[in-house]
């Protein structure tokens, strides 16, 4: 609530981001109510139609209604993007706190792994993963998540180190609390906001990564609407039916911008200098 109040009062761009995201999310949730057509129903005779009263955004390369595909596509796209960033957030936070709290061998090991992951671009890791284990929703989510983990480890480790110098941690240690209790009760709540700000920016990036994989043909059943795969298929028709790639591209850009705006506002909100 306090966040909302802050956004309303201080950050117009943050509000805009939130509005965009909420609009997309409600679109995804209400897809079956608002989509005018079955997004998978290919009517070949209607292929590549420009926008018209029957099809407000036109039809795609197989005569499927583009508006319906974009609406339903939000489901798959957001599911992939949100689950993968949350997975990365969870794993990265756990490892980051562990390594920052325990230091020593654990820290060295986690740091080594992070460096290796960081040396490869996320999309490359995702490509290797999907190529090895095949495209399925779960694999796609894990593949994208792996690429995002190192950021959270670095972030959380640094935050933990900062928290560790605080007196209340020293006090807890002196009281003889177990390491686990200290990490969960005292470190985690204090480092979480940093991660959350990062999280909302990353959802936007995850949408782009998923799009990239779909574009490369490493995605799911292409009949299932997913924005990345849709843009990948549309590229062959760029001269014949440019409306497909323009519309899907605009939607992807808009959603990524929405998450990015919100992320920036949250970062400003959490910034301790503000308080």
């Amino acid at each position, binding site marked *: 609530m306090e966040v909302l109040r802050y956004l309303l009062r201080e950050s117009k761009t943050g509000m805009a981001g939130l509005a965009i995201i909420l609009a997309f999310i409600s679109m995804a949730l209400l897809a079956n109510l608002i989509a005018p057509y079955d997004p998978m129903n290919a009517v070949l*005779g209607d292929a590549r139609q420009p926008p018209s009263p029957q099809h407000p955004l036109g039809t795609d390369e197989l005569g499927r209604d583009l508006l319906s595909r974009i609406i339903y596509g939000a489901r798959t796209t957001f599911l992939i993007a949100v689950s993968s960033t949350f997975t990365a957030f969870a794993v990265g936070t756990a490892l980051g706190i562990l390594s920052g709290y325990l230091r020593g061998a654990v820290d060295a090991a986690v740091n080594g792994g992070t460096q290796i992951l960081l040396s490869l671009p996320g999309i490359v890791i995702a490509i290797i993963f999907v190529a090895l284990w095949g495209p399925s929703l779960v694999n796609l989510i894990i593949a994208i998540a792996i690429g995002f983990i190192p950021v959270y480890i670095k972030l959380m480790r640094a935050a933990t180190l900062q928290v560790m110098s605080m007196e209340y941690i020293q006090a807890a240690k002196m009281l003889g609390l177990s390491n686990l209790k200290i990490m969960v009760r005292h470190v985690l709540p204090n480092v979480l906001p940093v991660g959350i700000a990062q999280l909302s920016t990353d959802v936007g990036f995850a949408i782009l990564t998923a799009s990239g994989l779909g574009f490369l043909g490493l995605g799911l059943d292409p009949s299932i609407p997913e924005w990345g795969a849709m843009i990948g298929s549309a590229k062959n028709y760029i001269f014949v039916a440019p409306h497909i790639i323009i519309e899907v591209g605009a939607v992807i*850009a808009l959603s990524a911008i929405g998450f*990015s705006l919100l992320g*920036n506002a949250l970062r400003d909100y959490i910034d301790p200098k503000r308080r």
Partner: protein
Amino acid sequence: MHVTHARRRIRSGMQKSFLAVIVALVVVSAFAGYFMYFRPGGGGGETTTTQSNSPISTSTNAPGTPATTTTTTQGSSGREKKVLRVGIGIDADTLFPISGTTTTVYNIMRLMYEPLFRVDENGKIRPLLAESYNVSKDGLVYTVKLRKGIRFQDGTPFNATAVKFTFDKIMDPKMVCPSRADFAALKEVRVVDEYTVQFVLKYPYAPFLTVLAGGTASIISPTSFKKLGDKVFTTPYGLGTGPYEFEKWVRGQKIVLKKNPDYWGKKAYFDEVVFYVVPDPQTREAKRLSGELDMILQPPSADIQRLEKTKHVVVQKVLSTRVMFIGINTQWGPLKDKRVRQALNYAVDKNALIKDVLFGLAGPMDSVLPNFALGHVKLPPYSYNPEKAKELLKEAGYPNGFKVTIYTPVGRYLFDKEVAQAIGQYLRNIGLQVEVRPVADWPTYVHMLLAPKNQTKLELFLVGWAPSVPDPHNYLYQRFHSSQMPPHGFNFVFYNNSEVDKLLDEGVRETDPAVRAKIYENVSRILWDDAPNIYLYLQYFVVVHSDRLQGVKLLPYEMFDISDASFKS
């Protein structure tokens, strides 16, 4: 601390304005796109197309391509030099016919080398370097009379010794010859006299004459072969008898052939034929439109209808030898039932697929064999009839359909992924639950196709088949004979029918073409009715050239013929 704080503010401010710029860009480009596209007259119209493409082509001018846009240049003799510039998608792997692998490259080699026979545009086998031939009654000895008075480009006389030399090289295990399996039936080549050779086979093998008409069986000059050594693969000077001879190969850029002044047949019209390597189809198209190339192979498929309407551009297409179909695993669940397989054939509207998904770049299959193959017979079509399909499903005990997966490669065939999705929809329309699984990596896909029966994951899958020898045996034997189930062959539909086996065994031994044709007609009838495939279409082979160029002929096996071609003056 204060400094970092300020910096953070600045950074976040910068990010905001950056985002604003992105938003603006997206919105503007979207509007621009819409405007261009919906403007009356259309941005996709022909005149704008040509204009907007020419700047692209000049900016993508690769090294090695000519900067001039004129076709004819003044030769040293003062006479105009006629140069034909052809754009191809891939560089050659080798220019030595015995080692060839790729149709595009055989299009180049076809001008330099000649085999004893050649298959014409109607699928008839015609003597080329041969004069006549006869086959012994048992089908084991092919006696070929050679044409007299022909010389290789290096001056060596063409005779029976050169023919034997060539086939000895093909059979020499030390020589690289990826198509050697086509010659597996050949035991030896005998020189009877200067202009007569005998091919002795190990067993009767009816497609043998077609094998002799293939590019691999091009006759080479023993003299040049010995002189060139390893250079036969890259700089085959004077090695063939063809109307053009090798001049220069700049790797990754171009292959230059020049006129053979002493050619035995109709003299070449062009002084030079240059093949430019332009991998990207869009760039190839742009270079053709700007006049940098006279002719291109395989333009971007989605643009062909637009090109057909463009001025000064001629689009030529011919049904190729590649048959496309959905393989049906005849040993899997509901697909074991012939009625279900027939239902699938009735459920798919092949004509709509061709018109709306393939941009008209295919012709429907009216039989198991393509129309130019021996034994082709027009069969009652599986016309689009979803009601009949549903009825057949009900009869077979699947009134509510069943769950099935369609596998498809990505980018291997024309619009493969799109075709698979469209077929998925047609099957959903008759009540099936369909998942389409694209397999982006081609070797992985082949591996899946060749998995043995107890390991296969296949249910329905999109495949094409273009045999190196366009003979009915090569179309059907490996795909439908029960001995050819993976891993032994390509019967990946696991089709098992003793009658078909028997007919296919007869077909490969029979040497009388009329009898053979009957055999393959019968096989076709059985296979058509039994429906181990959803029979789809034949892809077109497409060439785009300038309207200055005339007389270019296309052949079904993805080849073009320029022996009658010339520039309009």
